[in-house]
């Protein structure tokens, strides 16, 4: 285990390892997304109250779930980079930020589109939606903050601090539908006890959540690899790889 973690910090090893992972994970992600979307759009029955508009759930919920989970990945990588000054953690943190931003934006946009036929409005300033908007700004903030610094070591440190401070928002998002009155419904899927959603609708949803987790992982890895190639363009191992290709 420790040797594995230790190896992850080595760019040449990580580059080779992530190359193998991406080669399998990218096709798997595309298949999961295609099957999940087809299942949700074509096979699953309509909701008895919302009709067909509820089919947006199969992208809205996975995007939101992974946008939140992705924030932990980013903040954890930020903490590791801050405490142990591991370059790879810093690369991970910055690779996760744009992916999280896209997924948060997708959750907000699909939520707005779903809101129109269901609530009669595109947008309400309620706790859940507003805290998700703050999440989007946190992700974008990390991206922008890194670009704002000339000194990239200082930039990485500032981004790590920002992402750590932002974690306070995550439990607020989770609990927002319970703490405040909201148009947004509380969670239907529960780890303990009966889920408030029929299995004919639940299975495609779980599949799509898995697909979005894979999508997050594969995109973060692709971002990291692109970054590594540029950062190590002078390094012997990379020069060797380019020559062999």
């Amino acid at each position, binding site marked *: 285990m420790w040797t594995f973690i230790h190896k992850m910090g080595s760019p040449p090893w990580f580059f080779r390892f992530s190359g193998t992972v991406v080669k399998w994970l990218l096709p798997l992600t595309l298949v999961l*997304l295609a099957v999940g979307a087809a299942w949700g759009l074509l096979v699953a029955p309509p909701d008895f109250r919302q009709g067909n508009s509820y089919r947006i759930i199969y992208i809205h919920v996975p995007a939101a779930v992974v946008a939140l989970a992705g924030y932990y990945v980013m903040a954890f990588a930020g903490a590791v980079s801050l405490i142990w000054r591991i370059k790879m953690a810093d690369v991970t943190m910055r690779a996760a930020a744009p992916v999280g931003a896209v997924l948060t934006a997708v959750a907000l946009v699909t939520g707005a589109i779903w809101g129109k036929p269901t609530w009669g409005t595109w947008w309400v300033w309620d706790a859940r939606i507003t805290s998700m908007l703050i999440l989007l700004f946190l992700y974008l903030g990390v991206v922008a903050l890194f670009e704002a610094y000339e000194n990239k070591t200082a930039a990485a440190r500032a981004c790590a601090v920002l992402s750590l401070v932002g974690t306070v928002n995550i439990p607020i998002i989770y609990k927002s539908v319970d703490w405040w009155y909201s148009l947004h419904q509380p969670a239907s899927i529960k780890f303990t006890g009966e889920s408030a959603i029929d299995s004919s609708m639940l299975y495609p949803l779980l599949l799509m959540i898995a697909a979005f987790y894979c999508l997050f992982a594969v995109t973060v890895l692709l971002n990291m690899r692109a970054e590594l190639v540029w950062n190590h363009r002078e390094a012997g191992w*990379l020069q060797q790889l380019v020559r062999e290709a």
Partner: protein
Amino acid sequence: MYFDSLTALWHMDGHGFYVWLAYALTFLPVAVMVWLPVRRQREHWRWIAAEQRRADSVQADMTDK
């Protein structure tokens, strides 16, 4: 399959516009998000290869003289 025809699938009892718009606005950004780092890495890779060829030709010139 729940829908009887492609028209019914497209229309979705009046919700087709919302559902298809939401899916389009999800999968377009996702495709771009996956494609951008692939393109960026390919560009870096080409740049390094070009630098190597340049360095090699300089080396070859030096040995000729």
